[in-house]
């Protein structure tokens, strides 16, 4: 069975990368192929990387409060380059915004405080569902 390919990135200007790195290590130990793009990625760069890396899922981590605008821009960029890869979002996400993100088209939201095993299982589940339809 193909290892799921996960592209992770920190979009925007926020530098809090403890969470995304821990998630990357957790996914790696769970057997995923993790491509972590690093800090200050623009939506365009993330969409291009998702296409180039043939990602099964894209994950972004935002702790600055800018998650709604960033997710919206990233989804638009991914549509513009015609890739259909599910997006998951983690970070400091108030409950009311989790619903808004899902409404925008985000596949899963992992607010601060979600236990690591739940994040790993959730991301892999989203990656799997994508692998099943392609």
């Amino acid at each position: 069975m193909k290892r799921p390919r996960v592209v992770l990135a920190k979009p925007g200007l926020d530098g809090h990368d403890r969470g995304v790195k821990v998630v990357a290590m957790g996914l790696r130990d769970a057997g995923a192929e993790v491509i972590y793009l690093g800090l200050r990625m623009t939506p365009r760069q993330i969409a291009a990387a998702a296409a180039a890396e043939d990602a099964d899922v894209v994950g972004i981590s935002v702790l600055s409060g800018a998650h709604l605008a960033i997710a919206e821009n990233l989804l638009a960029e991914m549509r513009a380059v015609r890739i259909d890869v599910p997006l998951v979002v983690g970070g400091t996400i108030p409950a009311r915004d989790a619903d808004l993100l899902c409404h925008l088209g985000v596949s899963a939201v992992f607010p601060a405080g979600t236990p690591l095993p739940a994040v790993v299982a959730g991301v892999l589940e989203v990656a799997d569902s994508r692998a099943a339809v392609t």
Partner: protein
Amino acid sequence: MTEPVATCGDGQPAVTTDSGIPVVAVYTAADIAGGPDGLAARLGAPGEPPFTRGPYASMYRGQLWTMRQFAGYGSPEQTNARFRFLLGQGQTALSVAFDLPTQLGYDSDHELARTEVGRVGVAIDTADDMTDLFAGLPLGKVSVNFTINATAPIILATYLVAAERQGVSPGQLTGTLQNDILKEFLARKAYVFPPEPSMRLATDVIEYASDILPRFNPISITGYHAREAGCDAVQELGLTMASAIAYCEALTRRGLVFDHFAPRLSFHFATTLDLFEEVAKLRAARRLWYRIAIERFGAANPAAARLRFFSGNSGTTLTSQQPLNNVIRSTIQCLGAVLGGAQSIHVMGYDEAHQIPSAEAVTLSLRTQQIIALETGVTRTADPLGGSFFIEHLTDEIESRASDILQEIEDSGGAIRALERGVPQRWITEAAYRTEQELAAGLRPKVGVNAYATDEEPGQGLALDQPDPLVAERQIARTRERKSSRDSQASADALRDLERDAAEERNVMPALVRAARAGATVGEMSDAFRRVFGEFREPSPW
């Protein structure tokens, strides 16, 4: 409902502090190395070398710590209103949170800035914004802390112009500029320029301040962010001292005299929930710095060897689940900072896992400080835990283990070289992952998370502040208006001079102050540096 998952006591293989120091069931005089005389020499009196018991003789009897809640969001006016509110509630000094564009040197109208304007702090584009931020707040009287690093020299310049417009001379200003760029590369990640020119800018500020800002701390050397990013108390102390040595060496290489600049160095540590380890760490920090100042830099002025610090408690100990529990956590952390002898303290908001703290949460943080100060009696005597067998044993142990960490960094070529090689970054990331695995396995009890968890939706019932959707538009319009109404020749000339001074390795501060006065923006001044220094891009960790 889950059961508690770990308890101390018989049957457990090893009981240790959070940083892995073994703890036995009881401590006695036999655990104090060198007996009573040895201990007395390691302690000294409060206000006396080696400052283990505190930097001042009278400690909180003489003066309480400064209550300094970190605040800032939206526009300068919105943050000014929050400042007035906090001062009205009895806060004794100010601490400015800047938004990410300001921290990274982009004006609010930059395309990378737009989604971030005013979110995690206040948006400052010009000296006019800084003037508005402090409107009606007398800068000659109120001490101000600035959490700013990559753009610290620029922000200091705008602050000096704002003070000048209030008729306040630099010599009257009190406060602290964080200006610790090394920990940005290490943990906080709000860097802009490569390490070498960044160090030069940080030391430009300290050199400039040592001449004209005698009451202002031009740097706060911090282990706090490495700690929040994952490392333990011992590593935090070792890394902080490694940075301090790197700055002092850079300054003495520039010809500055240690005894002259070191009294204005300040430090910043986390205080987490392992109460006794944290108190011991803060005491060990003072003693370790004393030793470094004397042995390594030959300090003759006792004030140059006297460590003063700010504690920001610890955000990563707080949980999104059952957020009111965080009030209790913050109270214990604040108490730890007080028992450790802090000069100023910020208490985290209980809702920080969900949002920038609400007004209610900030007020409660301030009240936490006030209750500890006024109602508990812990301020009555200096270093109240001094002489406890356990505390003294831990203090000795932490000092010794942190010295080992420091040696390890020295062996990798010093703080800057170790950073470039990613050595401490690896410690931090590995420790963060280990902590997360221990939480998941229940080896590290966390109430509301892996013990006594409930099905309640995290954040239920929390008062969420609505972010202001128009703040970016208003700030962009204001900055454009100010740029179009300034003397464009004067600001262009000042920016050209700034770029020249940066390229010719002159101290950039005088040119920055002239540029800020001429209406140059934070983004324009940062761009002048970008043209000379380039930008740093972190190598991928994988």
